[in-house]
């Protein structure tokens, strides 16, 4: 019984700890630009650029050396006066479309963008067709099987005996 308050305390601390969390930033204080508008643009652009070392994180999230270099580069281009598209184009010109976390919509990426929806739709279609076929097959089968002839008296007596449990 003495353990209950302890568990309650542990539980409360756990809930507090999980609620009181800070977003983990890879951006170092020395990278942050003085101009908050530029810094905001830099963060947004960085979130859309892939870190090519880890490849599943943005350069905003990644601690890799190349990610930091690219973060600094983005800020330099913004400070030099480039607009957002120009900054992104600068990076894409050197690393290709793969550096964009959201792949551009173009002929070569049609399969990537439309694929999941196309597969999902064809799956739904297959399910639909399957159930329709089953229904028509069931109805047809019922018509195809002839009704059995009614039982004779002798057969009825045998059936009753069987059902009562005393087969001769």
């Amino acid at each position: 019984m003495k353990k209950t308050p302890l568990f309650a305390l542990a539980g409360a601390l756990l809930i507090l700890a999980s609620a009181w969390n800070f977003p983990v930033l890879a951006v170092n204080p020395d990278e942050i630009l003085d101009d908050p508008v530029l810094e905001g643009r830099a963060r947004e652009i960085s979130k859309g650029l892939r870190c090519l070392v880890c490849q599943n994180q943005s350069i905003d999230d990644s601690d890799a050396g190349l990610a930091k270099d690219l973060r600094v580069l983005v800020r330099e281009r913004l400070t030099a006066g480039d607009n957002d598209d120009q900054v992104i184009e600068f990076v894409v010109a050197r690393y290709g479309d793969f550096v964009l976390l959201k792949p551009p919509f173009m002929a070569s990426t049609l399969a990537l963008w439309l694929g999941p929806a196309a597969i999902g739709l064809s799956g739904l279609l297959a399910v639909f067709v399957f159930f329709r076929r089953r229904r028509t097959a069931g109805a047809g089968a019922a018509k195809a099987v002839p009704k059995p002839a009614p039982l004779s008296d002798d057969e009825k007596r045998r059936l009753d005996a069987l059902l009562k449990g005393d087969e001769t």
Partner: protein
Amino acid sequence: MAVYFGIGLTKDPKILPSVLIDKPVADFTLPPIEGGPGQGFSSADLKGRGVTVLNVFASWCVPCRVEHPVIMRLAEMKVARVYGLNYKDDSKAALKWLADLGDPYDAHGADTKGRVAIDFGVYGIPETFIIDAAGVIRYKYVGPISAERLDTEILPLIRTLSQ
């Protein structure tokens, strides 16, 4: 779907194709490794003097050490100039690395901040570029060069570009 999957499984997803193939090198100037020989090199040095193999390396890079004998062999064959781009390295460590293992490079450029390498689309060293006499990037390989790759891909391309 099965076709995509089947083909996809044979490829390494980490390797990016270079978008700089057939593009001219960006303008740059690199100093020599501090305390080391030479004057460094610039983009102008890559034009009008035959084929150049640009090898991006660093003393902290383990696969660079693995490919080093192959780079030495390439340099000894003297079919192309071999330039070394020392990527984000400490000058003392880099010079010691070259002294210990051997220096295959006709020129060294110290890219301590890695900014020039970004202009080459470098993301994971070692990386090796073949640049033709007009200063156009014609080939890029990410990863250590094996002896087989030297013989089957790099030497033939150098021969073709040298004609």
